[in-house]
């Protein structure tokens, strides 16, 4: 069923491209570039499930990524688990946490929910900063020996890259699958009019809970891989509020609701961001430009790039989802 969707193959092609390009010629700097884009796509795609599909704005989405990084890193280093196993367990643990958070805050609507998600982010950051086993505000560091299990530091960098590309492909495939499923239709109904959806038979409480928990899984897994690759984690970089918000900018830019929108917005924004941060004159204005971009999109093009594209070529909706 999902194999019939042409976009599925487009996703695989993109992933293949991401793997082939830096591998061919052993281009390490390209790999480092692309890994950031991949992480952005992972975060934006999973955030899309909440914002684009269900209409619930999650301002604190990054908390899953950071928490996943912590749990996974802890399991991989202190507990000596295999990296992939650690990542998967981290994914499950963080999804469970999301489920619990959801019990408290999913009953809130619209803006109240959005504000509450910021609270969750700050609360978790606060907690982790005071949590001994995870190094409190200093965080955790990886020694070089940890990479031996993956064949040394150099090799480990490539392995984690492939793993992250894998998660990226999975994120996009997940978005695609949900979009074309009965579950996804229920989410869209909730987004359009939650009360009407309930009267039509959608169990909104359960659906919201599921999508919130599911949207936490892959970012958590990616968090484990990414922080493992970076060799360190601390509360300020794990729970960077800005990254959460940039996720929203990416979605709005690319076009919320569309799978390609998340990817496009993430890719473009990430490029813009790295350009701004490295440019000597403009790095101070990174926030200003991002804010300005968001404002323009919200005021004049709320459908984002994909919205504009679909209006241009309505037939494209079927292929580029």
């Amino acid at each position: 069923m999902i194999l019939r969707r042409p976009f599925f193959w487009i996703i695989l092609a993109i992933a293949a491209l991401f793997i082939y390009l830096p591998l061919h010629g052993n281009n390490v700097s390209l790999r480092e570039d692309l890994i950031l884009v991949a992480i952005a796509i992972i975060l934006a795609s999973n955030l899309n499930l909440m914002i684009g599909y269900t209409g619930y704005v999650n301002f604190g989405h990054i908390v899953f990524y950071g928490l996943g990084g912590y749990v996974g890193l802890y399991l991989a280093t202190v507990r000596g688990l295999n990296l992939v196993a650690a990542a998967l367990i981290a994914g499950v643990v963080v999804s469970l946490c999301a489920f619990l958070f959801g019990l408290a805050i999913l009953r809130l609507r619209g803006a109240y929910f959005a504000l509450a998600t910021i609270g969750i982010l700050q609360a978790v950051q606060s907690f982790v900063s005071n949590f001994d086993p995870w190094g409190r505000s200093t965080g955790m560091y990886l020694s070089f020996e940890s990479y031996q299990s993956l064949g040394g530091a150099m090799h480990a960098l490539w392995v984690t890259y492939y793993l992250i590309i894998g998660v990226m492909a999975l994120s996009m495939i997940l978005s695609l699958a949900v979009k074309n499923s009965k579950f996804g239709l229920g989410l869209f109904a909730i987004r359009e009019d939650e009360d009407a959806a309930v009267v039509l038979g959608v169990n909104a409480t359960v659906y919201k809970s599921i999508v919130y928990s599911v949207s936490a899984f892959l970012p958590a897994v990616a968090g484990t891989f990414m922080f493992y690759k970076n060799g360190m984690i601390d509360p300020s970089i794990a729970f960077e509020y800005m990254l959460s918000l940039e996720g929203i900018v990416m979605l709005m830019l690319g076009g919320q609701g569309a799978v390609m929108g998340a990817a496009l917005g993430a890719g473009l924004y990430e490029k813009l961001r790295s350009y701004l941060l490295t440019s000597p004159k403009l790095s101070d204005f990174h926030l200003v430009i991002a804010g300005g971009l968001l404002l323009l999109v919200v005021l004049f093009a709320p459908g984002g790039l994909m919205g504009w594209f679909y209006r241009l070529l309505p037939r494209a909706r079927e292929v580029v989802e």
Partner: protein
Amino acid sequence: MSGVLASMIDGVLVGAVYGLAAMGLSLIWGVMDVINLTHGAMIALGMFAMYLLYTLHAGTAYLLLLPVMGVGLLLGIMVYWMSVHRVVGRPMLMSLLSTFAVNMMVIGIGTAIWSTSPYNVNYSVQGLTLGAYTFTGNHIAAALAALLIALALQWFLYRTRTGKAIRAVADNREAAELMGISSTAILTIAFAIGIALAMTSGALVSTLFPFTILSGATYQLKSFVVTILAGLGKPFGALIAGVLLGLLEGVVTPFIAVSWIPLIEFGLFVVALVAFPQGIFGKRAAA
């Protein structure tokens, strides 16, 4: 025990300023159902405005509140037309994002100008000593200023024509328009007042504690908690809820590390949202 009592009274004083800070947020939210995410940035701008004015003219800082309010009104009009006008009436997400975008821009510019270094307004008013307790003069003065402004706002909303028009628009925009009230003008004024209040509270805070361009965020959080507790659009409700929050902080700070306070406040925020859908004093618009 005496330490806690002093802390509590101080908390009440500072809480009045929290209440003032919340009034701006609450007014805008109540009148046009927009959650102003520039609130924190405006508070921070108010802090810097006071700093700049005081460097230019070192006198009674409290007189400088007036020009700060003026700047706030102008800024408010600008921000309204830039980011709110087009999205009033559209889904809440849009105004959240547009005001948030402006917030990002203001913080970005602010960081470019002032970086994230701490600043200070070196102004002190004679304190008050009652027996064993000494109360910082600045705190008392700030609380008094907050009270005065709240009274002025209450008078404005209930005794002037424009104020009544604002309350009418908050109640039912269409009906108000049918009565001949230009809702765009009213919304602009209400928003401008909201921003002016935010900046003024920031200006007061600058006389109490050192600050950076990022300090607004903490006060924004407190404003949200106060607004949710108090319900929308009621200046005195906000003041009282602010005082209660300050009191809570006063009770808690002697015993817990400062870094836990935001956590507690957000816990309170979520609990208040879930347990008091109507706010404690007034109405809360459906989100």
